[in-house]
């Protein structure tokens, strides 16, 4: 099953690279990519090569990586908080990143400044959630969830404040666009920052995937199975948060993926995180590549990703609930 998903991802990428105002057939796209390393007879012109490699490649790969990162951390969060309605925003990382990005936009720092500010504010929001949960004097997942809601609410308010005081003609539009997510401006540098983060933290999560099963039994049962709950939960939260913060800081916040894709994954491979975590990563990448292809081809101007993921996500979610008669 995982192999099928991986193949689908590759096909989606090849197709997506060819689709656009300037159409290139998938076999030509394949030739162009292979031609980078192997001697292949060139049947295409330099323009096609430029479009595929320089214009579309970064954003398509960006969509693949960001989709994979958000879904992987969503599936992990759902496992460790033993709650199927949880998304990677649970501890406030997305709302924190939005505030960071807004502040940077208002300070006119430029693209790099926005990314750094979004990443750091996302992390700060999660740290704040963890700190507040300590005030509950109870080291449970529920305390974390509650403080995550508090922090999410707080940062949403700050975001609203930013939007309220922002310059309507330049800053506000940019803030709103950022909070709806796009891979339009992803470039090679972004990819090279994203890739190591995903490989390292995603790799740790994949290595720990079976242990996420144990956490989903609840704290005391996991303890009696010999799990150091604090350590394992902490480690998985750090990895998922780093993945989400990094993804969001590059593309802006993209809703629904982290919540919905793990459910699609459960339909496909079942609840065992042994298979669910890798499957979620592949499905998430696939989904975002498809969504981004729609986003840039449905109309003459770009549609922000969150709008499409929101519409598709709502429909998918209803379909899944109807299919599984999920006990909510």
């Amino acid at each position, binding site marked *: 099953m995982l192999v099928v998903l991986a193949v689908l991802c590759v096909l989606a990428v090849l197709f997506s690279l060819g689709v656009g105002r300037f159409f290139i057939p998938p076999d030509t796209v394949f030739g162009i990519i292979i031609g980078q390393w192997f001697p292949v007879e060139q049947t295409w012109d330099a323009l096609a090569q430029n479009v595929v490699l320089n214009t579309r490649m970064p954003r398509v790969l960006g969509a693949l990586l960001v989709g994979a990162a958000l879904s992987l951390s969503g599936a992990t969060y759902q*496992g460790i908080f*033993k*709650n*199927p309605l949880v998304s990677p925003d649970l501890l406030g990382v997305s709302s924190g990143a939005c505030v960071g990005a807004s502040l940077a936009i208002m300070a006119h720092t430029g693209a790099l400044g926005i990314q750094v500010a979004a990443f750091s504010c996302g992390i700060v929001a999660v740290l704040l959630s963890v700190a507040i949960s300590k005030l509950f004097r109870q080291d449970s997942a529920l305390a974390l969830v509650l403080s995550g809601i508090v922090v999410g609410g707080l940062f949403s308010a700050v975001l609203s404040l930013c939007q309220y005081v922002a310059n309507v003609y330049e800053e506000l539009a940019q803030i709103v666009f950022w909070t709806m997510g796009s891979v339009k401006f992803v470039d090679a540098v972004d990819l090279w920052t994203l890739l190591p983060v995903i490989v390292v933290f995603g790799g740790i999560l994949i*290595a*720990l*995937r*079976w*242990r996420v*099963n*144990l956490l*989903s*039994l*609840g704290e*005391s*049962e996991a*303890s*009696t*199975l*010999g*799990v*150091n709950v604090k350590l394992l939960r902490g480690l998985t939260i750090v990895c998922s948060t780093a993945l989400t913060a990094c993804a969001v800081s590059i593309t802006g916040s993209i809703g629904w993926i982290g919540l919905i894709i793990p459910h699609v994954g*459960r339909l496909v491979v*079942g*609840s*065992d995180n*042994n298979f669910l975590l890798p499957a979620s990563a592949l499905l998430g990448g696939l989904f975002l590549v498809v969504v981004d292809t729609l986003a840039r081809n449905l109309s003459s101007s770009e549609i922000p990703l969150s709008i499409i993921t929101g519409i598709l996500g709502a429909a998918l979610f209803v379909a899944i609930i109807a299919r599984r008669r999920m*006990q909510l």
Partner: protein
Amino acid sequence: MTRARQTEHTRLNVAGLGYSYTPQNPVFSALDFSVEKGEILVLLGPNGSGKTTLLNCIAGLLRPQEGVVELDGVDLRSLRRDLLAQKLGYLPQAQQLSFDFAVLDYVVMGRSPYLRFGTVPSKADYARAWELLERLGIAHLGVKSCGRISGGERQQAQIARILMQDTRLILMDEPTNHLDYGNQIRTLRLIASLADEGYSIVMTSHVPDHAILLQSSLGVIDGKGSFCTGAAGDILTESLLEELYGEHINLLYLENCGRMTCVPTCIR
């Protein structure tokens, strides 16, 4: 010499144990008892008397303020979590699962204390899980999801998961709770056969007859801070039952079954 000494260790030794959620109201204090290899200890006591708290202290889930718990002569506090889980399995009261794991995947989780960080269960572990399911007569459930099986079947899956842990001591919190009468009897029979294999078992119960049926040791927590242990046949008396439950309960000898039983008098 050393080997001989090791086997002499009591499997579970509890000495001077005291726990309180708030400093003014200790749940219990200065509690002493021990459980040998192959011994069953049934803990009786009214609701809220601290039976589950006691199990949680033994399982290391709660930190008792006083006293020590020793497993095979080793202080519990000096054991790492995974090493503890190799010595002690815990069957908590029925709990809701958040995700629909297949029964086999659920059972195989019992292997976790033996798996190194970052590894997943091997083929041999899954084969072992199948064996245990067969042994408990629930192999046909292996591929079913935990959400779609009955309470009795779920409990058997949980016991299979604990047997996967290869421990020598098993704690069970009201193992017959929520089970129909037939499943209650079958669960008791399973507990007896585990004890015959050498497992030591500490279980809580609300039915004094369980101790009689299992011919076990009995530990009585009355919720006012006093605790007594002994063979069920020795310490179970009508006055003890009345003191525990606030009702008069008859302790009768059943000619047909060749055992004692506890029954209340008519209610109306």
